[in-house]
């Protein structure tokens, strides 16, 4: 039995000027799966992420998260509902410390309400302590604990990727959209991160949708692969199927018969 998808998008369309960046693309992410979204440069993967996470509004199409329609909802509302994304170029808060970057993302912060810091200092302080502990724990996980007090602006590109990953985890997401999470991360650490992703799926029931270019990595961790090209989803299936799909290879390398039928696995 296939469970109902946690995230399902149907016929999404987004145009920039005369170019269809996303062209009637549909995607389904099964709960507690690791789904990879791949495709060549300019295929529309990042635009798809922007649509799914509410950073862009689709012109047409429907998005359902956890059984509820959510297209057109603002990004912060989706994030609060458990759909959290990272960015291809990590967006860290440079003039804030690594620890502050993490703590910002903590959930249920009474102290963020205007004036609560003055009116209910105890409750705020208690929650702050919990969030700080949680942040330190996650920082240890991503090996940034020694840099907790440094400004995030001093981190390297790979470290920023890690920090953004950790910050996203702070929100305790149910579905995490990761945009090239391993780019620039040192190989040994990348391997550990992959392990963590698999662990988080197993222990917390988290679901992942990942844009990644390293095919071997994609093959190693993903349950399903969705391939985009020219804004459309051209193939979907198990890793083994995708790797041999001539249409996918053609999408990457160009040329040859584009009309070949997609090797498509059963749609969730």
């Amino acid at each position, binding site marked *: 039995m296939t469970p109902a998808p946690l995230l399902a998008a149907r016929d999404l369309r987004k145009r*920039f*000027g*005369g*170019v269809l*960046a996303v062209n009637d693309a549909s995607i389904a992410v099964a709960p507690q799966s690791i789904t990879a979204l791949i495709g060549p440069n300019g295929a529309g993967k*990042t*635009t798809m992420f*922007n649509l799914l996470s509410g*950073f*862009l509004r689709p012109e047409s199409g429907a998005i359902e998260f956890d059984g509820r329609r959510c297209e057109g909802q603002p990004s912060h509302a989706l994030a609060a509902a458990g759909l959290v994304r990272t960015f291809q170029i990590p*967006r860290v808060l440079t003039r804030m410390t690594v620890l502050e970057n993490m703590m910002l993302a903590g959930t249920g912060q009474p102290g963020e309400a205007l004036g609560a810091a003055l009116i209910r200092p105890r409750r705020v302080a208690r929650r702050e302590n919990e969030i700080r502990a949680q942040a330190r724990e996650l920082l240890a996980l991503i090996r940034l604990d020694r840099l907790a007090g440094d400004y995030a602006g001093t981190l390297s590109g790979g470290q920023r990727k890690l920090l953004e990953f950790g910050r996203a985890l702070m929100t305790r997401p149910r579905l995490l959209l990761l945009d090239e999470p391993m780019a620039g991360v040192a190989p040994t650490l990348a391997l550990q991160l992959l392990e963590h992703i698999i662990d988080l799926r197993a222990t917390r029931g988290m679901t992942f949708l990942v844009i990644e270019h390293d095919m071997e990595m994609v093959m190693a961790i993903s349950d399903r692969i969705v391939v985009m090209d020219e804004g459309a989803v051209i193939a979907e299936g198990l890793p083994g199927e995708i790797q041999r799909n001539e249409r996918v290879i053609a999408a990457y390398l160009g040329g040859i018969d584009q009309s070949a039928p997609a090797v498509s696995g059963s749609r969730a």
Partner: protein
Amino acid sequence: MRTFAFPAEWPLAGKRRTTVGIVAAIVTLALVAAVVSPRADFAQFAQLVVNGVITGSILALAGVGATLIFGIQRIANFAHGDFLTIGAYAAFVVNSLLGQNLALAAVGAMAAVALFAVVAHFVLFRPLRGRGTVALALISVGLGLVIRNGIAIVAGSEIRRFQVSQSDVIELGVVRLAPGQAVAIAVAVIVAPLVGLFLARTRVGKRMRAVADNRDLAAVAGIDIERIAVYVWILAGALAGLAGVMLGLEQGTFDPNMGVGPLFLIFTAVVLGGIGSAYGALFAGLALGLAMELSTWDGFFGGLDAKYKPVLAFVVLILLLLYRPQGLLGRARIL
């Protein structure tokens, strides 16, 4: 401080048509109101059109410079209004102190402000390039204070006027003009189209638009961006100088604070035309000037009290930001 950056959206087609439609709608509305309203006074209407062309040209000429400076240098120049003041005072020196005619005075004003703008570019803005929009804006605010109060110290803070008769009246059909206004309208009718032609037809004009449009591509196409930047400051300065003379003529008098008021109207024209679009600013400046003047026409639902003209512009600006944040002719640009 990073602002939201998405993959650059390409300009949307057909926006110019939208703008033409909006202007046509306003004109139609005015004409309908004129027919319907028993109080319609066409002599007043003609007079307001003339005033509108003068005000509009001032905003258009200043706006072209401000928008090109933003497009090419990423500077929201808050000293632009004070550039107008420099122009008025430079013309005053030539006209009243040296006793030359107004045409020569205007040329002197254009040269003086152009020179000042180039000096500001080399001494201030070029070395500080890349400081971020807000920092550069604050620096231009400081420059504005220096200009305004520098003029007050050197030239005094008293009200000045050009050597034109304040009492003569020139009658053009139903329209009555003070000689200063007549000069201003003559300049407006000649110069605004000339600027349009310059941008459309000359090599330098096209290069300026190209650099404001797409800096890297312009460099690859063989345009020396640094040199064009200097030309843009010269053009912006000269046009601001001329606009300053026109403003002085239109108002009849001026003082060192003359440029403060028009600054936000200039910015409104720039935003209205789409930041970085020279044609947009030219067009929007004229449209804004006309709209502000015509709104006081009796035929327009009794006419707005003249006091509220700038308020009207402010309302237009706010509505514009709500309706189409990238401006009417422009496109979404990512800083």
